[in-house]
């Protein structure tokens, strides 16, 4: 994990190395100051030596300037290094996600990926900055101060050594204990927030069933449990600062007593004792700082794990060694295809699929929810790989093509389709970056989108909002079809893409396809018989297998499932729109 992340310091290695150096400069200056200070008091003020006061004063001023320089530079480079690290992480994650195959995408939720790229990366940025700026500072400060005390008097310094070891052990113990508690707290906290989220999204259900009281009772109970856990965790922490104080006070008293004895025994001067006491705070503060960093770093471990998870995720689909850049024609062959999303699944999603589609043919696919219609067509553009058997496009296995070439020739209008923020023309050019305005308009005409686009005040420059929320479901579907048409593909797959388009427009679109792009192989998945009944052949899917293939007339006579759907729909064939938008 650390190896994965550390690769992304690239470009900011200089800043990352320089930062601790500057911080060390600052620390050294900070350690020198008390030393000079005691000299100012002992030899300057107490002896009334104004020259010495001026001398030590200017040394201190110099130290202050150097310390300032080190501190600011460390701050600036540290900010750069950590912001750069975060930038690289985000970029690398985004690029890696772009390389994901569908199967990889399925693993993550949108919200999960967004959190990983924002909150988690910000956590890592802060942790990295701290690592560079404080992580080096604290130990160096500790070592400097310890060295100073040992130089002054090794015997007294051992008091500090004992105090450090004592405090170190206690802190380690407390941290591991509280860490465990806090882990539990965060788990419960997440659960509580999940239930709030649920209430926010399902508020209509809560209100419709008048369950406000019920939900409040549930929440109060959960909030109380969280409270108890939090109190437990924080109670384990409260002793940290008093223990720290006791250690400091104990060391001061011990050093005072032992120091007094040594001075009386002429083993120590009074000035040295003063310096010893000054370093006491330095030492223990840096120790505290170390403990704090340790806690913060362990807390960012979870973020690091999540980020590394995305970075290490390898796309399970890769381009072949010597890819084929030419798709001959739009024919499709399924040969003994078995497929499942999860390799360990007992029952495959598709079993024993054998189907030959000629170039230019129009194929309708129909079947109940969960009969694997979408899974079947997703194999054509190699959105997923088969488990067994093979899928051929233009007579060659899809796995032999260059992915980009293949997907340019196989246009899929996905079931859950998305428009992006930007103008209608911008969206159209997803299909073909270099399409002229005329080409875009032509495609929209073909998909019967031109009419309503013309009715918008800004026409083709109308801005589509994120997720396409400002156009209706049917309009969105037609825009998506137009976008796919701009690719001029050899194979066009419509996965339930006209469900929200009214029946008559749907029929017009199909007719336009027949007339305008006769050579393109067209595959139409629909729940509506009327959308597929004029296809050259209709495939009836049922529970992952092909139940029947034939023309409408043949199927009405021979296929029970088809007949059932047919009769259910003819008794009221029309509908306002197949699916309510959202």
């Amino acid at each position: 994990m650390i190896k994965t992340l550390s690769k992304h310091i690239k470009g900011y290695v200089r800043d990352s190395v320089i930062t601790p150096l500057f911080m060390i400069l600052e620390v050294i200056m900070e350690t020198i100051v008390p030393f000079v200070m005691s000299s100012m008091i002992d030899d300057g003020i107490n002896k009334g030596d104004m020259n010495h006061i001026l001398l030590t004063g200017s040394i201190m001023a110099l130290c202050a300037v150097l310390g300032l320089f080190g501190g600011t530079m460390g701050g600036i480079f540290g900010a750069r290094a950590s912001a750069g690290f975060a930038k690289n992480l985000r970029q690398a994650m985004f690029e890696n996600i772009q390389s994901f195959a569908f199967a990889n995408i399925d693993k993550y939720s949108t919200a999960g990926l967004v959190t990983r790229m924002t909150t988690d990366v910000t956590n890592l940025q802060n942790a990295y900055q701290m690592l560079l700026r404080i992580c080096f500072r604290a130990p160096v400060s500790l070592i400097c101060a310890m060295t100073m005390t040992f130089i002054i008097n090794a015997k007294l310094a051992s008091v500090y050594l004992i105090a450090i070891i004592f405090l170190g052990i206690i802190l380690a113990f407390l941290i591991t204990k509280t860490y465990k508690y806090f882990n539990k707290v965060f788990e419960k906290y997440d659960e509580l927030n999940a239930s709030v989220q649920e209430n926010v999204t399902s508020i209509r259900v809560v209100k419709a069933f008048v369950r406000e009281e019920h939900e409040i009772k549930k929440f109060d109970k959960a909030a109380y449990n969280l409270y108890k856990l939090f109190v437990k965790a924080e109670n384990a922490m409260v002793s940290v600062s008093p223990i720290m104080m006791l250690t400091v006070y104990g060391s001061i008293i011990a050093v005072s007593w032992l120091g007094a004895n040594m001075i009386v025994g002429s083993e120590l001067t009074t000035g040295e004792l003063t310096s010893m006491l000054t370093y006491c705070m330095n030492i223990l503060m840096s120790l505290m700082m170390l403990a704090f960093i340790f806690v913060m770093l362990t807390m960012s471990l979870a973020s690091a794990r999540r980020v590394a998870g995305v970075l290490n995720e390898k796309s399970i689909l890769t381009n072949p060694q010597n890819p084929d850049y030419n798709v001959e024609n739009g024919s499709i062959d399924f040969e003994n295809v078995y497929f499942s999303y999860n390799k360990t699944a007992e029952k495959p999603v598709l079993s024993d699929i054998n189907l030959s589609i000629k170039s230019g043919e129009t194929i309708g696919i129909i079947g109940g929810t969960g009969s694997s219609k979408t899974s079947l067509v997703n194999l054509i553009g190699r959105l997923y790989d088969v488990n067994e058997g093979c899928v051929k496009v233009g007579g060659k296995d899809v796995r032999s093509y260059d992915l980009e070439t293949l997907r340019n020739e196989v246009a899929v209008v996905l079931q859950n389709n998305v428009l992006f923020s930007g103008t209608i023309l911008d969206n159209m050019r997803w299909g073909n970056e270099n399409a002229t305005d005329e080409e875009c308009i032509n495609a929209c005409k073909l998909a019967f989108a031109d009419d309503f686009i013309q009715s918008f005040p800004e026409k083709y420059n109308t801005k589509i909002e994120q997720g396409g929320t400002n156009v209706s479901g049917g309009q969105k579907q037609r825009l998506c079809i137009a976008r796919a048409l701009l690719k001029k593909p050899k194979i066009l797959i419509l996965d339930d893409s006209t469900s929200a388009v009214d029946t008559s427009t749907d029929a017009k679109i199909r007719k336009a396809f027949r007339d305008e792009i006769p050579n393109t192989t067209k595959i139409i998945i629909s729940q509506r018989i009327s959308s597929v009944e004029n296809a050259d052949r209709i495939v009836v899917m049922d529970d992952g297998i092909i139940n029947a293939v034939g023309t409408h007339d043949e199927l009405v006579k021979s296929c029970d499932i088809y007949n059932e759907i047919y009769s259910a729909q003819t008794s009221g064939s029309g509908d306002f729109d197949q699916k309510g938008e959202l």
Partner: protein
Amino acid sequence: MPGPNRRNRNQPRPKVNNPFKTLKRLLGIIFKRYKIHMLFVLICIVVSVLANVQGTLFIQSLIDDYITPMLSQPTPDFTPLLMAIVRVACFYLIGAGAAYAQAKIMVYVTQGTMKDLRSEIFSHMESLPIKYFDTHPHGDIMSVYTNDIDTLRQMISQSLVQVFNSVITIISTLASMIFLSIPLTGVTLVMVVVMLFITKNIAGKSGKYFVAQQNDLGTENGYIEEMMNGQKVVKVFNHEKKSIEEFKELNDKLFKSSYNANKFANILMPINAQIGNISYVLCGIIGGALALSGATGLTLGKLVSFLSFNKSFSQPINQVSQQFNSIIMALAGAERIFNLLDEKSEDDNGYVTLVNAKKENGKLVETNEHTGLWAWKHIHQATGEVEYKELQGALVMDDVDFGYTDDKIVLHNIDLYAKPGQKIAFVGSTGAGKTTITNLINRFYDIQDGKIRYDGINVNKIKKSDLRRSLGIVLQDTHLFTDTIMENIRYGRLDATDEEVIAAAKLANADSFIRRLPDGYNTVIKSDGGNLSQGQRQMLAIARAAVADPPALILDEATSSIDTRTEKMVQDSMDKLMQGRTTFVIAHRLSTVKNSDCIIVLEHGRIIERGTHDQLIEQKGRYYQLYTGKTA
């Protein structure tokens, strides 16, 4: 889903509008609930600060008052030193004890306040009208529970105590400094002013960039969200390279603002620390000169003490200025929390309630049992007279206008008559206002004009909870809760037995698929039923409405995601469920509404046709067109 003016979630969070008012309210909450606790905390802080101060004083006097005298004695007498050390140790112990007590009490104060606030926010949120949820992005509401509460926790547990602590230290130190030397105090204060001035400037710059960073992060967040949502489309269109390029641009911008924000934040501490050192040096030099000239009565001993106070003076000021940022952040959070708490609850002036009833001698009598017979209990406000009226399910809408906002009316002149037990269907294209009408029946929204009467009673007079209890509803978007399937169905009626739940599941045709799940009815549903298919979730929602056994039903696209074959099977049981109940059905498949008593065709918020199936076919209007696929 209807939802007017959803706010763009990428816009920056607003700053604190009224920091003092918010702070006062926040402190009011804490001090009111934990008055005694907070008093103890204050005492503990004073005690531990004093313990620390006497420790500092001891160190200063250690050499002069104890060690030096001993050096001049032929046989050093350690007794005074020992006594002093024992005394100091006792004070230290008390100080550490006070610190411990303070920390411990604060845990209860902080966590208690958090718990109370959480519960208060949640229960208030549950009382808010649907409109609130339409107009506030869910992410914003969630962040009140997470970010805002978290920053508040930090502020109460850390900043508050630290500021107290610092203020006491500053006051006591300042007093001592003035006592020792007024001119040197002046020098120190000038340096503090310089420190504050620089802090303000740098913090302002850093704040500006932090806002920019927040903005850039928001934009990038939006971009990521959009691309991740459309990731499959990106793949299908080979758009990866382009989106990487676009992302790089946003990312570089974020890097710059983030770098600048952190840069200024980082240099603040070293600058202040060094100004503190320079203040020390200045006081040393000026004080030295003063002491040597003997003009102001400043002795060398006093100067030494003063210098140590100078050192311990800039530290708490530094600390307070460090806390300042987090306090501002916490106040911004507190303000958002208070905004939510100040949001007006759904108002409910209804006084007519729904009760179980039975008939005794032909008269309606209230009862506690579930009899299947309901009555409206109407207490006349003037006379106190109680009147019972049987719930029959007659609904009348009289010239109703409605808009989500006053300036945009989406439903116009809706007239509607549903007789008890009738099945009323709404059809029309997306956005015609079908769902909106049903949302008015259960008063998710209140109408602008007109009247809605339920069994002859104006719905405004019926208590909202009772009105809604009388209406079973299957919503367009199925929402399930993280719990077992059994409990999810039981949500319809909390006291339903397992048998009743299973019967309802059978009615919704869900029993067979539930039994095939690994744990059957005890299978836990996660993340809104993500592990179930859309159709399966709808069947559970139907079962949930069925178990409630309500007098009237609203089915909003209840079977839209169930495939045609399964729908046929569900349809029979749905018909059973609807029998004898007034039912409002929204459906897109005309076959499912054909047998309705009245079909209402909506377009652009107006009723354009109404009648039975046969009547509408005869009219040869819009319905006919859609049903037959022919143009008239």
